[in-house]
């Protein structure tokens, strides 16, 4: 999927991605020559199809988590399906605000560990000391974490 500014005959560049939370996705692309911006809007089925490929429109800066697509998409997974062992990266921060912890607690156990790690990696990469609901909201959009 690529976008072409027909007037300038230039390939448009990815600019921004937004996940309103209703299963749809908005991705904006800008012409590097004239600056015109167009938005790609996908319906829930189209959004799901892209997510099912395990790719992110706009790319991602974080390494994939093991079984990321399975853990993010399976609705009937066991809460205790996964157990993390070994050195915990949590010792190196960031900290979680009470509100962020409460929000995380509402994530199904099947995927909670992975979601926590993704947000922590996101915060570490950006030197964010404390994860708050606002940080989580920003990360969701930036990372394309629909449903997380």
């Amino acid at each position, binding site marked *: 999927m690529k976008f072409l500014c*027909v007037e300038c005959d230039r*390939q448009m560049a990815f600019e921004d991605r937004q996940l309103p939370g209703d299963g749809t996705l908005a991705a904006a692309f800008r012409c590097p020559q004239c600056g015109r911006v167009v938005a790609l809007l996908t319906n829930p089925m189209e959004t799901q*199809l892209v997510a099912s490929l395990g790719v992110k429109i706009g790319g991602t800066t974080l390494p994939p988590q093991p079984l990321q697509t*399975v853990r993010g998409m399976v609705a*009937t997974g066991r809460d205790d399906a*996964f*157990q993390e062992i070994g050195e915990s990266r949590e010792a190196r921060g960031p900290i979680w605000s009470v509100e962020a912890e409460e929000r995380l607690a509402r994530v199904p156990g099947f995927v909670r560990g992975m979601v926590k790690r993704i947000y922590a990696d996101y915060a570490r990469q950006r030197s964010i000391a404390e994860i708050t609901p606002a940080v989580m909201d920003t990360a969701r959009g930036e990372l394309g974490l629909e449903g997380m």
Partner: protein
Amino acid sequence: MPLNIRTYHDLTEPDRSGLPGQIGAQRRRVAERLATVARVVAVMSGKGGVGKSFVTAGVARALARAGRAVGVLDADLNGPTAPQLLHLHLASCTLHDGVIEPAVSAEGIRCFSMALLLEDGRPLAFHGPEAESFVWRGTLEAAALREFLADVAWGRLDVLLVDLPPGMQRFAELAELLAEPPPVVAVTIPPPESEEAVRRALRAARDRGAPCLGVIENMTGGPFSGDAGDALAREFGIPVLARVPFHPTDDVWDAIVPKVEGSR
């Protein structure tokens, strides 16, 4: 006046999304994970209910008895049975250093299956819009197969057996993910109805360039009449690897080992 629009392949400027690059990275993860696996063998049949998973477990045990390092990837995501057939305890999967450890049977067989992840008795269901779910469900199942290959710490294996569901869709997905189509073992039962379904599957595998190691005729010596194993072997120029009765002894499975493991 018609617009002069360049085509997709004409546009070669760097793109932050890099979707082909993301797909390429997924394939590399599979290749890197399987670099320590000497041989991937697909156990398939065009027919349901012929005992593919039973045969897979029997062959895996025989390989383990022969001292081979063997793994079983249960690619039947909607009807996973490998853990039960290998007598695995359904404990939590261990995440360690960014990979998932496979479950390991008492015989040392490494196994990964959707059954290890699902709630007891619940079907495999996905988050997502129910309307037109047929559009994305197959893609999601292919992604699950890819992640089972790439994200499970299979380690050094002589043989990784992939227990495929009925039909050929999952085989096509598997062949797409590997550097080359995997050798296949076809499983049939004696009746002609099974022969016809397995014939289609074998042709599909052959059309994709997959070598066929042979056919295993399962459930012999019982109520089923027919010679599907022999007929398929003759037609495709492949050996009958074994005729497996309803209550096979170890020697039935052990005879298959040299034919499945390939050159060592």
